[in-house]
C-alpha cells in the first residue's frame, strides 16, 4: 500500500520534470490535445455551456491555439484554476498555457518566470456598490467592507489605493468569483472590487443588475492576456502569434465566414501570407502552412470573439473602449505579419 503510493509519487515527480523540459509543441502534438488553464467561471469570459463545454472570451484563445496546431478547435482539455493555483499549474506542467484574465506584471514575468505573450483585454480595477448605499465615488468608501479575491493583483492595488487616500477598510478575502457574488449580495461586504470587465460580467448575472452601480474610479492598469512558462520560445511564439493573428484578422477584415474564400481569391499580400497561400510562415513556428486559416475559420477574429461573448449584444454588454483597434481609437495593436 505504502509502496504503491511512493511509486506513484515518484512517477508524478518524473513526469513533472520531463514536462518542464521538452518542447511543449511536440508534447502537445504527442498528447493529441492542448491543456489549457481557465478560470473557475466568470460570465462571458469563461463558463461552461449547457453541454458542459467551456466557452467564453478566454477559452476562445485556447480553441484558436488548438485549431492552429490540430486543425480542430475542440482538441482542448480545460483545467479550471483559482487565483491561487493558476501559476503553480502552469509552472509544474499540468497545463500548457493559461488563458485566465491574468494581469501582466513585472514580478510575474521576471520573478515567477512566466511569459506573457500579449494582451487580449485591456482592463482596470473598479468598484461595484449597491445603489441603495448612495455612494458615488470610491473616495467615499472610508471604513467600508470590501470583498476581494485573494491572490490577485487587485488585492495589492486595493491596499495601495486606500493607503494613499488615507482611508481605512475591512478586507473580506474570497477565493472565487462565485463566492464573491454570494457574499456581496448577502451584504457581507459593501463593495466588490475586481477588474471592471469582471464586475460588469458579475453584475450581468444578478437578478436586478440595475440596483448596482460601478463607481467611476478605475484605480489600476490591468492588461490581461494568455501566458506560458519561461524557457520555451517556440511555444511562446505559437501562442503569441495565434493571438496576434486574431487581431490582425480583424484589421484586415478576415473572419470565420470569409476566411476560406479569401484564401483563394484575395490579392492582398498580407492576407495571403496569413492564410498560407504565399510564403511558408507556418513552418517557421513549427505549424502547418494554413494554420491561421483553420484558427480564424473555426474560432473567428478578435471582433467576432468579443461580440460573441462579451460585446454590447450580450448580457455582459461591454463596449470595445480601449480594446478597439488602434485604427478605431483603441490601443489594440498587433505587429505586422511578415
Amino acid at each position, binding site marked *: 500500500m505504502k509502496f504503491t503510493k511512493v511509486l506513484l*509519487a515518484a512517477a508524478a515527480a518524473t513526469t513533472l520534470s520531463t514536462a518542464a523540459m521538452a518542447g511543449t509543441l511536440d508534447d502537445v502534438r504527442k498528447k493529441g490535445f492542448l491543456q489549457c488553464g481557465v478560470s473557475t467561471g466568470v460570465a462571458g469570459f469563461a463558463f461552461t455551456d449547457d453541454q458542459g463545454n467551456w466557452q467564453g472570451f478566454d477559452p476562445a484563445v485556447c480553441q484558436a491555439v488548438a485549431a492552429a496546431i490540430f486543425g480542430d478547435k475542440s482538441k482542448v482539455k480545460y483545467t479550471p484554476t483559482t487565483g491561487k493555483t493558476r501559476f503553480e499549474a502552469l509552472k509544474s506542467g499540468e497545463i500548457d498555457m493559461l488563458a485566465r484574465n491574468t494581469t501582466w506584471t513585472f514580478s510575474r514575468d521576471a520573478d515567477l*518566470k512566466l511569459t506573457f505573450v500579449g494582451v487580449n483585454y485591456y482592463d482596470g480595477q473598479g468598484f461595484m456598490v449597491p445603489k441603495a448605499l448612495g455612494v458615488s465615488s470610491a473616495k467615499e468608501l472610508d471604513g*467600508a467592507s470590501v470583498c476581494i479575491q*485573494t491572490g490577485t493583483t487587485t488585492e495589492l492595488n486595493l491596499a495601495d489605493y486606500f493607503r494613499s487616500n488615507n482611508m481605512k477598510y475591512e478586507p473580506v478575502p474570497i477565493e472565487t468569483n462565485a463566492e464573491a457574488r454570494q457574499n456581496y449580495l448577502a451584504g457581507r461586504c459593501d463593495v466588490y472590487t475586481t477588474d471592471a470587465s469582471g464586475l460588469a460580467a458579475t453584475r450581468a448575472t444578478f437578478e436586478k443588475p440595475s440596483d448596482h452601480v460601478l463607481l467611476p474610479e478605475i484605480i489600476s492598469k490591468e492588461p490581461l492576456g494568455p501566458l506560458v512558462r519561461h524557457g520555451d520560445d517556440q511555444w511562446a511564439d505559437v501562442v503569441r502569434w495565434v493571438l496576434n493573428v486574431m487581431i490582425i484578422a480583424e484589421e484586415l477584415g478576415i473572419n470565420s465566414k470569409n476566411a476560406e474564400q479569401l484564401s483563394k481569391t484575395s490579392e492582398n499580400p498580407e492576407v495571403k501570407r496569413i492564410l498560407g497561400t504565399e510564403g511558408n510562415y507556418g513552418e517557421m513556428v513549427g505549424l502547418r502552412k494554413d494554420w491561421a486559416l483553420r484558427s480564424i475559420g473555426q474560432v473567428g477574429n478578435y471582433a467576432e470573439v468579443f461580440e460573441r461573448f462579451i460585446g454590447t449584444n450580450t448580457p455582459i454588454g461591454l463596449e470595445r473602449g480601449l480594446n478597439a483597434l488602434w485604427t478605431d481609437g483603441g490601443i489594440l495593436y498587433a505587429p505586422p505579419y511578415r
Partner: protein
Amino acid sequence: MTAIDINQAPFKVSNLWTDQKSRGLLIQIVALILLLLFIAYIANNTINNLKLLGVETGYGFLGEPSNYDINQRPIEYDSRSSHGRAAVVGILNTLIVAGCGIVLATLLGFVAGVLRLSGNWLISRLVYCYVEFTRNVPLLLQILLWHGIIVHSLPLPRQALQPAEGIFLSNRGFAIPWPHFEPAFWAVVVGFFAAIAGAVWFRGYAKNVQAETGKIYPVVSISLALIVLAPVVVFFLAGQPATLDWPALTGFNFSGGLTVKPEFIALWFALSVYTAAFISEIVRSGIMAVSHGQTEAAYALGLRPNWTMRLVILPQALRVIIPPLISQYLNLTKNSSLAIAVGYMDIVATIGGISLNQTGRALECMSIVLAIYLTISLSISSVMNWYNKRVALVER
C-alpha cells in the same frame, strides 16, 4: 540452551539470511536505505527542477513588505509590514481559533457526554441525534453552513440587532464592548497570578490539615473566590486602570469596542460543535468504563453522590478519556486550516495563501506552514501527555 548453540556454531554469511532474527533486521535495514534513497531522489529532483525553471529559493522575501491587508489583526499590522509579520498574524489567528475551539469543544463535549448517559429518554435521544448528525457531515460543509447562517440571516449593520446595551449583532460580526487597558493594569495581572499561587498554597495546606486532623476545608470555593476577588480588589485599589470601549455605528461599519468577524464565529462554532460530538463519545465511554461496583463501593463507604463522582469515578474515567482527547485537540487544531473556506486569515490563508501567491515562493511558504503546525501539535500533545502521566494509574 539455545544461546549456547548459537555461540558454538561457526559464523557464516548465509546465516544472516537463514536466521529469523537477523533476516528481519536485514530487511528493515534495506527498506530504510531504500526509503532514504527515495527521499533524497525526490529532494534532488525538486531542487534540480527548480534550478531548471530558474526559480530562486530562499527565505529573504520574509523581510519584504507584504502589500496586503488582513482584517483580523491581534498585533499591529498594515500593508507596509513584512511577510514575516503577516505570518505572525496568521499564527496568532490560528492559535486564537484553536484555543477558543478547544475550550468550547471541551465544555460542550463533557456536557453532551454526561447528558447522553442521562436517564431522561428525551435528553439522551436529543444528544444522540446531535452526535450522529455532526459526526457524519463533513466539517467543511458545517463551516460553510455556519457562515451562511450568520451572513444571510443577520441584518446589515444599519439594522443591527441589539440584544443588550452596547452589543450589536449584524452580518459584519458581533460588536461588543472591549476594555481599553492603561499601563497600571499590570498590577491587576500580578494580582491575578498571586491569587493563583495563593490558591495552590492553600490547597496544599488544606491537604495537610486533613491528613493530620481530618478537618476538611471547602478548597474549591475558597480558591475560586480568591482568584476572582483578588484581581477585582487590586483593580479598584489601582484606580480602575481600564475603561470599556463601546462600539458605535460610524459610516459603513461599527468602530470602537471589538468586532468579532463572522468568519471567526463560523469557524469557531463549526470546529467546536464538530469536535464536541467526538469528545462527548469519548467522555461517555470513559464514564462507562468505570465499573458500577466502584460506585456501589463508594456509596457503601458513605461517600455522597457528588463526592463519588469527583473522587472515585472521574479520576478513573479520565485515564480512559485523556489519550483520545489529545488526538481530538490535535484534530481541531489541524482542522482549523479549513479557515480558508470562509476567508478567516489563519496561517494557511496568510503566509500559506496570499504571501505564497504574491511572491511565488511555494516551497518556502509551505515549509513554514508545515513547521508551524508541527510545532503547535507537538506542544499540545506534550502538555496533554504530561497531564495524562499525572492522572494515569500509578502501579506499584
